[in-house]
């Protein structure tokens, strides 16, 4: 069993433990799907679908050998100097955007802040550890660190894994469509519930239902559009950094990397 498979099993155990905790403490022994709204069924289908997809993917790629980097000290470093540079660049940019007031205000405190997208972009181009670091850097000066310090790094982690699969799609048009749909699904079914749950269960700022999915649904939809527009612009500008292959052919040449 390789490292990735071990992580996968640990992840499943954590999900199972979370499910048991949800049943015991939140549902308090009620029927499994008692008091659930229709949107929860949709969420359930999406989550189960993602889990099945993960199983299939893990089975296919499970046998592949991992690359090992050898360093002078003989120990694999947590980050290469390039990744440290990327983490510093995205972490710094997140604050610089905020400090310069580059955010589109909606209904306060809801804003569309490009700085909040930096953990995702860092995860996409630098790997999960870079995503975590930029997420932590983003969470430290946040107004609600009890939520942002764990939720922002999680964004960096799942975007790394999702992105890794998106860039594997050969057809560029199909890749853009999958990317747009994934952005919306992840925003609506992962990011928003995660932040709303943090604000409601940890900080007790509001109730989980109906804040998600109803009260703030409009914001989630608008935000996912904003997120996709920014992601698309950045990826178009730096395709190589994000491993984005273009189908465009140069005169007399073959399809290649941008």
């Amino acid at each position, binding site marked *: 069993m390789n490292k990735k498979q071990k992580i996968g099993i640990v992840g499943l155990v954590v999900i199972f433990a979370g499910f048991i905790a949800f049943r015991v403490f939140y549902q308090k022994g009620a029927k499994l799907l008692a008091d659930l709204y229709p949107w929860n069924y949709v969420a359930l289908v999406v989550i189960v679908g993602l889990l099945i997809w993960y199983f299939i993917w893990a089975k296919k790629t499970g046998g592949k050998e991992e690359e090992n980097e050898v360093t002078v*000290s003989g120990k694999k470093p947590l980050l290469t100097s390039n990744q440290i*540079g990327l983490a*510093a660049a995205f*972490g710094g940019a*997140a604050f610089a955007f905020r400090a310069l007031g580059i955010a589109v205000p909606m209904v*306060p405190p809801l804003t569309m802040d490009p700085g909040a997208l930096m953990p995702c972009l860092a995860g996409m181009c630098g790997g999960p550890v*870079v995503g975590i670091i930029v997420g932590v850097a983003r969470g430290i000066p946040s107004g609600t660190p009890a939520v942002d310090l764990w939720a922002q790094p999680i964004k960096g982690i799942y975007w790394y894994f999702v992105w890794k699969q998106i860039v594997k799609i050969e057809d560029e048009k199909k890749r853009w469509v999958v990317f747009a749909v994934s952005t919306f699904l992840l925003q609506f079914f992962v990011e928003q519930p995660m932040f709303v749950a943090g604000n409601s269960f940890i*900080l007790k700022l509001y109730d989980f239902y109906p804040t998600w999915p109803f009260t703030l649904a409009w914001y989630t939809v608008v935000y996912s559009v904003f997120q996709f527009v920014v992601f698309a612009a*950045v990826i178009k500008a730096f395709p190589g950094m994000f491993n984005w292959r273009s189908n465009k052919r140069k005169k007399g040449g073959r399809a290649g990397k941008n």
Partner: protein
Amino acid sequence: MNAKIKNSFLYSLDPRTKMLMLLVLIVIGCSIMDPIVTSFMLICMYVLYRTTGYSRKQVWGITKPLLLAFFLFFILNFPFATPAPGEEVFFYLIPGNKIPVTLTTISSGFASAIRFVFFIWGADLITAVTPTGDIVLTMNKAKCPPEASIAIGIAFSYIPVLKNEIGNVIEAQKSRGASFESKNPIKKIKAYIPVIVPGLFISILKGREIARTIEARGFTYDPMHRTYRKDIRFQAKDFVMMVFLAALLVAVVYLKSQKGWFYTTFILDVLTK
């Protein structure tokens, strides 16, 4: 940061004590549901701001953007709070006895809104009086990998440089006729894209420079045994503060879990009984 803040008691505390303080404030804030007690905590926080050297104007500057959020949190909460059994209903928001307005629902809305301001104030104050270098040292003391703490430290110290560079991009776009003043969110997003992309490009270029520099200095050779010019040590006042914070936390958790205090209408019930 002015000299008064740098000479304040809060600034002089060890960063670990300040982090513990923030954690205790969050736990206490989450435990107390009564808007009157939460307001008292907010007043205490204001006193802490003032004793740290913040002027009234500076505190107002932090609070002003939160006012609309205050109302939003009130609106997000009070229609969905459950009234206490047998409680008097003032009126219904929607005809057909839907969304009752009671003392509990109003108190619940206010408590959440005040708590939001309390959290922002607390986090803002603690991070403002903790220098970036100290955050890095705290992370190292907490056995956080040095690569991660250094990356966060560089990110923080690079903010003024990037702010300046991205500010230049904004000025350049303005000189080319770009307008960022529109209130239409779609127009605003469109206007910001030519700033975000070159801004990120500059950040990434700087990031590559950082990578070359740290590689040239041999950082990745043995980061675990890296030494630091400054070291952080607990002082007597840190221990006193930690004992006080622990006692406060235990008291609040005990009163809440064992005596049932601090529920939404706790003070009002005490006063009317």
